[in-house]
């Protein structure tokens, strides 16, 4: 394992599953054997305001906050938060946005999970690890549909 820390910034507004998605990535990175830290702001941000969450993983992570200009990935659950987060992105950072998905997915409650699927095209964690994790984190009646959404988003287009 090299010393590089991978930084994933999640952004959107309250109620879009940003905390959930970033918790899942944190746990996934932990199960991959990385040191991992996550930081977020609660409180006032629950009331329809901007919410962001920083996930950092690697051999050793110190600060729980992604320094400006160092995010490798931005998972933006709302388009309008992309501009707000720009200063945190590395040049050439990968941005995952709602318009990357079909309208059905973009307007569903599972957009956060679809975005994790898309993110995994780059992170390349084993799919089984995600499937187990989603199954353990959601109620049985919605776990399978989330897994399906994750898989579809994770598959490369032909």
């Amino acid at each position, binding site marked *: 394992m090299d010393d590089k820390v991978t930084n994933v910034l999640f952004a959107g507004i309250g109620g879009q599953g940003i905390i959930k998605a970033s918790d899942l990535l944190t746990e996934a990175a932990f199960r991959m054997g990385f040191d*991992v830290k996550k930081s977020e*702001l609660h409180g006032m941000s*629950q*009331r*329809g305001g901007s919410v*962001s969450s920083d996930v950092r993983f690697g051999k050793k992570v*110190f*600060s*729980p*906050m992604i320094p400006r200009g160092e995010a490798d990935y931005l998972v933006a659950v709302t388009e309008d938060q992309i501009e707000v987060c720009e200063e945190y992105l590395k040049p050439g950072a990968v941005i995952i946005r709602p318009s990357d998905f079909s309208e059905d997915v973009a307007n569903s409650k599972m957009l956060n999970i679809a975005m994790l699927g898309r993110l995994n095209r780059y992170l390349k964690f084993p799919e089984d690890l995600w499937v187990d994790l989603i199954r353990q984190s959601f109620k049985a009646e919605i776990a399978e549909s989330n897994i399906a959404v994750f898989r579809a988003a994770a598959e490369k287009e032909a």
Partner: protein
Amino acid sequence: MSAEKIILSGDEAVARGVFAAGVRLGTGYPGTPSTEILEHLSELGSKAQWAPNEKVAMEVAIGVAFGGGRAIVTMKHVGLNVAADPLFTLAYTGVEGGMIIVSADDPGMASSQNEQDNRLYGEAAHLPIMEPSDSQEAYDFAIKAFEISEKFHTPVLFRMTTRVCHARSIVNLWKTPEAPQVKPYRKNVAEHVMVPANAKKAHVRLMNMLADLQKWNETSDLNVISGPEKAELGIICSGAAYQHVAEAAPKARILKLGMTLPLPCSKIYQFTQGNKRTIVVEEGEKYLAEKIRAAGIEVEAKRDIFLYGELNVAKVKKLIANDETPDAPPKPGRPPQLCPGCPHRKVFESLRDLGCIVSGDIGCYTLGVMPPFNAIDCSTCMGASIGMGLGLRHTLAEAEARKVVSVIGDSTFVHSGITGIVEMVYNRPATGHLVLILDNTTTAMTGLQENPATGRHLNMTPTHQLKLEELCAAIGADHVDVIDPTLHNPEFRALVQERLASNDVSVIVCRRPCILQMKKLAKYAKK
């Protein structure tokens, strides 16, 4: 012993730590970023409860500790202001069972009205201070804090910050949980009854205890030196600042202080001798730097520009370089707002339309200050709406005085609004006064906690329900009405106008449940 590694927030890690250490009781008042400690403690199976306010919580915890059990009391930084009265004398009495006082500070004010640095309370009251820097230390230090507390018969001020409370990282749960133990009760008048004759001795005992604790802290493993033996740059830090420092200055020699009162001055002096330059990197006030310099040890303090906001890696680099150029302001995100369907919306629309002067309070409804309402004139601290409203009534010309309304939420009212009603009926303004209790049947701002007016405990079991309207009537308000301002808005507006036109002192309980609370209760009913 089977160690288990899991990912926890700092708040959860504290709960795990005190649970493992056999805590008898957890108590506190909800406040970001401290709230999840007691919620998690309750989930683990410990006795954990919300008090009406931080002062009562502190007093209950003192009783547990006097009784020989281990207690934790949790609050946000401004909560310790409310609990400061028992705090200062508690330092004199000391404790039998271990006692941890969590102060969750909020540098940067993610969700607070100020960014006070509560290490200064430790200094003013002479309390040992521990500052964990991540979740593992939150767990380890919580266990250690009880040991120190009992060994030295002192409560411990456990200072956390937003980026420790709400950051998640890997924790090794090394301790097999112990069942709560209670020492046999010992009547101890000399130490527990603070009449002057006893308190004079207690003050001396306190300072002697701190001298002993300082000796202990010189060699304790709470304070860790890392990096090369000799270096150009040495950095002294504590809490979340350490994590930023370790990343911002990987070649520096670092002294991370886990116990920041009493300071291990010999260790700090020895540390500075290995460095060409030593700077203190800390969030909040220049607490460490000033204490260390007062001990005659040469260190650099941060520049004043770093007194504001929270630290991060980039800021720490600038701090070390004495670079005072201001940061570019962050791009504004979406500001928080009252939820669609929030019961407070109709109240503030009405008060705005009626041209009221609104004395506000602390809760979701502070967002009544935002457009399109623009309906709040002042807001300072929990419970202040009533006193400030009365002061405005005593001061403004009659036409303006008649427009003054105090608004306060149900949980905030129970916290520190009741005495405001007593003041209102005792020292009546000439034009009377009107208090609106915005009763959304929960403590919404901090994430839907129960309170004495909901009739449910922290763990959702039923208990006596405090009736706010009966309480206000018993205190002696001239009129107490209960109305749903959303469902009956014209009637609500007419009632406000009628009360404002009179010289009476009145309370209107605006009762309509928070929409998020209704979802929570529906979810709970399904379980």
